[in-house]
């Protein structure tokens, strides 16, 4: 029987409707026969490239004056200069150190508090309510207080980052611990696991996916807090570079700094992805491998 014959007999079954061959049956095409498409990465690359091109054209034609925004060529050459003098690397290292020490302190506090309140009723009663209250305070609003407490050196910057990163980790690890499948905990008990064994083999591994989500948020926020923190009278770091550039209307250097912030954020995201690849390959819906 040909397709059209099938169409007709199928349409005959639906007497109330006139024959609609095009509607009755469709031929499904396998993915392999759908023709070669432009690869995804190439398609996704078109937008950014076009943007840079427009930016470039606008600045060489003078539509976009350098005082407003330097062109990509200028930005590239001043990036090269900053790298040659070593200024950029130095600034990046200082900023990275700030972000990482802040994250280390904040993350440790956040995870420790989450474990305390996730695992014990007493911990929950003592810790969770204040944490839920404090998290509604916007971190940057604390800058004046942090300056009063810690002065204008490294301490308030790191404190700001620590404060900002503690909360996402706290909230996610706590939710992860509380969300562990109860039936698995029960299974663990029937296998003879004691409290410590349950925590180690069931509860903490079960909370790990959430913990990594928390880490991702924390890293994102660490960057944000870094940008704000480096506005506090910095004498080194990417923020300092940027503040200097502002004084002299060097929009090219400012753009370089913005790109550096973006690249750092990207790098950190890659790190979290690798961590997920390593630690979450057991997940049923894991697709990152």
């Amino acid at each position, binding site marked *: 029987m040909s397709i059209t014959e099938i169409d007709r007999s199928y349409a005959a079954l639906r007497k109330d409707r006139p024959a609609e061959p095009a509607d009755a049956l469709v031929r499904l095409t396998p993915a392999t026969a759908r023709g070669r498409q432009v690869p995804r990465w190439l398609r996704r690359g078109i937008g950014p490239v076009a943007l840079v091109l427009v930016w470039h054209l606008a600045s060489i034609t003078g539509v976009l004056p350098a005082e407003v925004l330097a062109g990509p060529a200028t930005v590239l050459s001043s990036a090269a200069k900053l790298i040659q003098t070593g200024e950029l690397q130095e600034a990046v290292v200082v900023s990275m150190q700030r972000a990482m020490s802040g994250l280390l302190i904040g993350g440790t506090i956040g995870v420790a508090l989450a474990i305390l309140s996730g695992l014990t009723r007493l911990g929950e009663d003592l810790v969770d309510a204040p944490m839920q209250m404090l998290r509604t305070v916007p971190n940057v609003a604390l800058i004046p207080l942090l300056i009063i407490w810690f002065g204008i050196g490294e301490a308030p910057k790191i404190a700001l980052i620590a404060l900002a990163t503690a909360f996402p980790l706290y909230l996610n690890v706590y939710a992860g611990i509380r969300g562990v499948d109860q039936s698995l905990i029960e299974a663990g*008990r029937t296998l003879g696991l004691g409290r410590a*064994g349950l925590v180690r083999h069931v509860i903490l591994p079960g909370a790990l996916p959430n913990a990594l989500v928390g880490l991702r948020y924390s890293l994102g926020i660490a960057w944000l807090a870094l940008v704000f923190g480096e506005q506090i009278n910095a004498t080194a770091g990417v923020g300092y570079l940027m503040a200097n550039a502002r004084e002299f209307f060097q929009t090219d250097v400012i753009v370089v700094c913005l790109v550096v912030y973006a690249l750092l954020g990207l790098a950190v995201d890659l790190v979290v992805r690798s961590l997920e690849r390593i630690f979450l390959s057991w*997940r049923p819906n894991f697709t990152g491998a």
Partner: protein
Amino acid sequence: MATQLHRSLKTPAAVAVRGLSRAFGPRRVIDNLDLAIRPGEFVALLGASGCGKSTLLRILGDLDPEFEGEVVVPSRRAIAFQAPRLMPWKRVWHNVVLGLPGRPDRKRAERALDEVGIGHRADVWPKVLSGGEAQRAALARALVREPDLLLLDEPFAALDALTRIKAQALVAELWQRHGCAILLVTHDVEEAILLADRVLVMKEGVIAHHEPIALDRPRDVADPEFARIRGALLDWLGVAHGAAH
């Protein structure tokens, strides 16, 4: 509350339950229930959905202490549930020996997995196991503990018909080899008659009926005596069966 859960290594019976009651709110799901299981005996427990079979099993497994009455069970027990409940973040072999004292013993895990026919799956994550394989892994995990009492709560209910038949044969074989007492909760009357020494029917919070199965093993569903027992059990379960079978 007269709550007692005695544990002893050597009991004359594998399970001795007297006057057991368990209420959820005002509802007494188990109401003055008595039950004895001999060491090495294979007992199947039938009953309408929601009649309290899992509740009884959970009490015997020391997962639910909120009962009244006297319960004596062996200290070495193992449970397998309808869902395999493997830890998704541990490799299959690691799941098998989880909770055993000492360092995780890979050899021991592999022997247990070989015994249930999935030795080649020792190194994979539980997520890649099929339903039947996961249930076998759960059985290996239970048996590696050398239990005197194995509690099975509808372990085959989620398996497809073919896989279920194989799994039933496997349980029969493992029981012969290990000689532990088994309490198997099932809703499948034929499965109960195929496997058990004795079939219990639970109703209104008590064991309403004991049906000893004297048929030789391996058993044949086509045996007239098999059909008679099935008919009797279906009557106890309140299921009209004349036309259906």
